[in-house]
């Protein structure tokens, strides 16, 4: 008995390893597991308090604060970013349901303004993050990135990359609706 066990143990271990590896491979191939999607550190944590010069009035400041009256979105965008153009329609829809604060990430103000004129302005307010310092505080690793924040100032969701129709329908809208129903 002991003999047969020692014989089969390596095989057993190999089978375990191979099945884990296969599951991972299958999930990757089927698109369920996205290699480029990174875990988010800030979910469930309070927003990093951020103060940025306003795009519409450079003398004034936009403040992203710990508590607000309603939940809201924070969207990092830039005029030089092609996926930001792709998500413009989705943001336009979202903008009708919830406040969106835009952060123009490493962008020239005049370019940001032209971008908004061309692709629509879904934002309630826009801050200028000239050197990407605010992005660094939020853990942004590439624009566009969108955060959903509860009225208590807790980050509920983070989406890196453009919001397409599926993500809008399956992820953002239900979550926003449930937040608003709760009130």
């Amino acid at each position, binding site marked *: 008995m002991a003999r047969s066990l020692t014989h089969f143990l390596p095989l057993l271990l190999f089978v375990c390893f191979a099945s884990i590896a296969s599951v991972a491979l299958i999930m990757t191939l089927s698109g369920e597991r996205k290699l480029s999607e990174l875990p988010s550190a800030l979910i469930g944590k309070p927003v990093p308090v951020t103060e940025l010069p306003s795009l519409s009035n450079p003398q004034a400041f936009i403040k992203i604060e710990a508590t607000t009256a309603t939940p809201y979105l924070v969207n990092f965008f830039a005029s030089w970013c092609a996926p930001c153009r792709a998500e413009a329609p989705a943001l336009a829809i979202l903008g009708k349901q919830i406040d969106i604060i835009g952060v123009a990430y490493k962008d020239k103000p005049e370019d940001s303004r032209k971008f908004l004129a061309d692709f629509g302005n879904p934002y309630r307010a826009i801050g200028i993050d000239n050197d990407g310092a605010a992005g*660094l505080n939020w853990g942004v690793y590439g624009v566009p990135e969108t955060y959903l924040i509860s009225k208590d100032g807790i980050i509920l969701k983070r989406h890196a990359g453009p919001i397409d129709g599926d993500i809008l329908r399956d992820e953002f809208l239900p979550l926003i609706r449930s937040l608003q129903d709760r009130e």
Partner: protein
Amino acid sequence: MMRYFNALILILLVGMSLQTLSVPAAFAITAEEQLADPELEARARDLSKQLRCLVCQNQSIDDSDADLAKDLRAEVRKQLLSGADDQTIMADLQEKYGDYVLLNPPVSVATIGLWATPILALLIGGGLIVLNRRRVKQSPPQSAQDLSENTAEKPVSVKTMHAGTPGTPILAITASFCIIAAGAIYWFVLGSPSLPSQPLSQRASEISQDASQAEALLAEKQKAYTAAKDATLRAPENIGSWLELALAAAELGRMDDELNALRTALSLTGEDAGIKSMLAEALTRSAEGQVIPEARQLIAEVLAENGREPRALFLSGLAAMEDGAYKRAVDNWRYLIEISPSDAPWLVVVRKNLQEAADRAGIELKTDSDSSNLPVLSQESLSAAAEMSPEERLEMIEGMVVRLRERLENAPSDSAGWQRLARAYTVLGQPEEALKALVSASEAAPGDLKLQLAVLEQLMLAGQAGDRSQTSDQALANEVLVRALAVNAEHPELLFFAGHFARQEGDKDKARFYWVKLLDTIPQTSETARLLQAELDKLAR
């Protein structure tokens, strides 16, 4: 066993030391980023090597050229200057970007498996070896029972056994050595950090070469455009040069010029359907995919004239999609796929669009696998043939026919392919080959009654022309008749052929049987009935 094991450990150790010895040669950091204080700079470099660039994901921020890596390097240095210690800086970045930013994952519940696996593997492996050795010592060497067991289990290994050791599966050891060797080679070629870096500055010439190539291509397009424009100026009546100008303008993205050229060409030809659909397509492109009213008008005109014009069919599907008439779009594109040659270049796009339309309309598409990607006799190659001299054209078609034939001989069940081959042979003026291909097509699709009838008709015509061997044709006809009668024994045309070939064979009774049956199915007063009756009377004599 031990010897092999030792060798294995040695290989692993050598590999590891090589890895630690070799220092990556590439640094992404630039001079202006560096701190003046060499001690702080050294700490910054050290920290950077432990932080992952979240864009490139398998490089440290010290290695990476990405913007984010640069920002993170600046952040590390900023915090160092403000007097933070290494732990604080790492903790701060970990809080913002998560554990993932650390190239050395921390030991936690989530990562314990990662850290424990090597230790576990060593323990288990060592345990197995110890167990094995102990058992070997206990059991007397080469006992009868042991030997018989070994022989039964691993006959290969008996000869190579060391005295006293249990069977050493030589195959397994060779295999594991091969795997390790292959891994080592792979690592030295592709994975080793000592590989020379390919910094941007060294690749500058390569990049500039690419750029100049792109420029040359553009210049060439520009030249083609100018030449085409000149040609239209010299001969404004020549439709071909206007079409060429349209193509050249399209290449350059000069929408207005393209539209103008197509309009001129259209007015020169009167109402050519092909040019109309080209114009409709150009209009749609210029409206960024919207099928504007003018384009719709053109499409309607083209389809009224020729309902099989692929470009117009495609666009009309697009227009239907735009109107939300998904069902109509599905019908349109299905029909287009059906009538297109199976290697038409537009099929990929049409199929994709069809899928989308079907999804929106809630229609389940049947997948047909038989008519996909056959590389011969496409619309495109045929239109290319139009520009050649007659000899060249013939040669090209013959080449294509040979290729098609070779392919079909390997996949004889492709009935549609055989039918295409038959048509090609007819075009080439080789009726015998055409008939052969047609017979193969009918064999590949025995349930296709129309196809069987076509073969019978060809056989009958060939027999009447009298230039073929009667007996082999007769056998062939009988085979086809059996197949066809199995599908539908009442079909009038088939009954006629059955009677004809029975008479030709000399079997008058059989011929009479079929023709009488046929006579019952057709109106008694018709001309056919009268002729058939006359033939029957002749048979009776």
